């Protein structure tokens, strides 16, 4: 053991620096299961407060769905708690294979491999498939897990301006002599809630012989007419070479992720992807839960349809109240406040009103683009959304930002 005082002091100073920069993250303890109504202990030690949650990725309200809980219980009873092994030694059960087949069918791909998380899927996929002779060209707003995965690959990396198809094309021309070109994007961008133009991207990739990878974590289960994802919405099912996604959001909300796509690419991940090779896969009760989620979503679109209606009501309500929103049609609805302190205060006041929504500011979003990111769920009933809307209006009026433009809010509060 060697943890002398000077080392402790060094790390303490690092933490103090994070606090001084206003970047220190504090957890709020939820004493109930994840749902529209939750009980929160905040600040630590405070008595429990019942609030409406509008910042979870629980898009389809599956996190505490009784049938999913029942299926997970059954999976626990029939297949045990854990596997104590990685997949290729003695960690693969029949239900893992079944889930992979179900995901393949649900997403309309050729094959699927499970990962402990989508973070792991993104961490493993690039290194497994690409060499230094290849190039990865990613949208500048892709998720942090993709950036980490890209860092682990020896392939060259370049970027294109967010959703700028001309710029993407210029990059494919610039790198046309590379062995493989892989274009990388999120399906739904998690901070802004906008979608990638997958129809145009497919055409461009076909023109330049490039593979297309889409992280559909904020889309799987509810974007598109039957909830298959952004590729369904843009009419390009079967044309996305690699989809990575998570079971930690719309598809149950527990954990786990996957790479789904061309058969050979998935097989190569099975042979080479390090998070798959050197980590246990998804635990049996969770596998059983996700299987049930996919059964429910494949049988009916009721939940994604309700989510669509809820989202429309919420977006229209905020818009009519005079808030500045990021445009879009996904359940991610960012309420723009621009100033970090205002976003923090707004979130605190919402909590007082019984609404749980978090402020996001630099470095999570660009400087001067602080916001409250709201996320709508099929688990919300109309009374939840109406109460939340009233709270937003009340707090918005307190800060005098209703009906104000971006410029006017910035003039009042700064960036």
């Amino acid at each position, binding site marked *: 053991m060697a943890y002398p005082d000077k080392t402790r002091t060094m790390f303490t100073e690092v933490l103090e620096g994070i606090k001084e920069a206003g970047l220190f993250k504090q957890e709020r303890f939820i004493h109930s299961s994840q749902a529209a109504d939750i009980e929160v202990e905040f600040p630590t030690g405070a008595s429990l407060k019942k609030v409406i949650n509008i910042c979870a990725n629980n898009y389809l309200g599956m996190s505490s769905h009784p049938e999913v809980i029942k299926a997970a219980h059954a999976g626990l009873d029939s297949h045990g708690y854990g596997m104590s092994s990685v997949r290729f030694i003695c960690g693969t059960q029949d239900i893992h294979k079944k889930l992979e087949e179900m995901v393949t069918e649900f997403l309309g791909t050729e094959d699927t491999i499970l990962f402990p998380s989508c973070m792991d899927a993104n961490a493993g996929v690039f290194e497994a498939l690409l060499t230094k002779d290849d190039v990865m060209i*990613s949208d*500048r707003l892709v998720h942090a897990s993709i*950036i980490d995965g*890209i860092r682990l690959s020896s392939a*060259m*990396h*370049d*970027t294109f*301006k*967010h959703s700028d198809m001309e710029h993407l094309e210029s*990059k494919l021309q*610039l790198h046309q002599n590379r062995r493989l070109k892989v274009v990388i994007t999120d399906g739904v961008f998690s901070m802004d809630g906008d979608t990638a133009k997958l129809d145009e991207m497919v055409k461009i990739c076909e023109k330049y012989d490039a593979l297309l990878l889409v992280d559909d974590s904020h889309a799987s289960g509810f974007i598109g007419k039957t909830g298959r994802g952004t590729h369904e919405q843009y009419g390009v099912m079967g044309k996305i070479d690699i989809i990575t996604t998570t079971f930690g959001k719309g598809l149950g909300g527990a954990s786990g992720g996957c790479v789904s796509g061309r058969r050979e690419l998935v097989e190569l991940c099975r042979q080479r992807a390090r998070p798959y090779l050197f980590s246990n896969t998804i635990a049996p009760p969770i596998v059983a839960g996700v299987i049930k989620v996919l059964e429910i979503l494949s049988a009916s679109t009721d939940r994604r349809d309700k989510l669509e209606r809820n989202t429309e009501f919420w977006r229209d309500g905020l818009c009519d109240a005079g808030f500045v929103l990021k445009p879009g049609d996904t359940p991610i609805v960012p309420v723009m406040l621009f100033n970090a302190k205002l976003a923090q205060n707004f979130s605190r006041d919402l909590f007082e009103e019984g609404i749980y929504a978090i402020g996001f500011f630099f470095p999570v979003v660009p400087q001067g683009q602080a916001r409250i990111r709201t996320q709508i769920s099929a688990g919300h009933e109309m009374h939840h959304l109406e109460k939340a809307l009233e709270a937003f209006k009340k707090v918005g009026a307190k800060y005098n930002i209703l009906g104000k433009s971006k410029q006017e809010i910035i003039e009042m509060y700064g960036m």
Partner: protein
Amino acid sequence: MEEMKEIVRDYVIQEYVEDDTEVNFDTPLISGGIVDSFSMVSLKRFLENKYKISIPDDKATPEAFDSVHKIVDLVNDFLK
């Protein structure tokens, strides 16, 4: 020299700046968050094509690309 500075600055603005951020010859590009280290590759390729040079990867560091002035100095090292 002055012409090269203008050319490099124009490229940086066109390629990386998406708002009204001003870029002068000493504006920190990488450390200032205007150019992320991932996106440096297109700047490197642009310089190599434009000035018919080859910049080894170990010279194309975030420090060497951190301002228009530094980039021009780097290019001039390979033009000699």
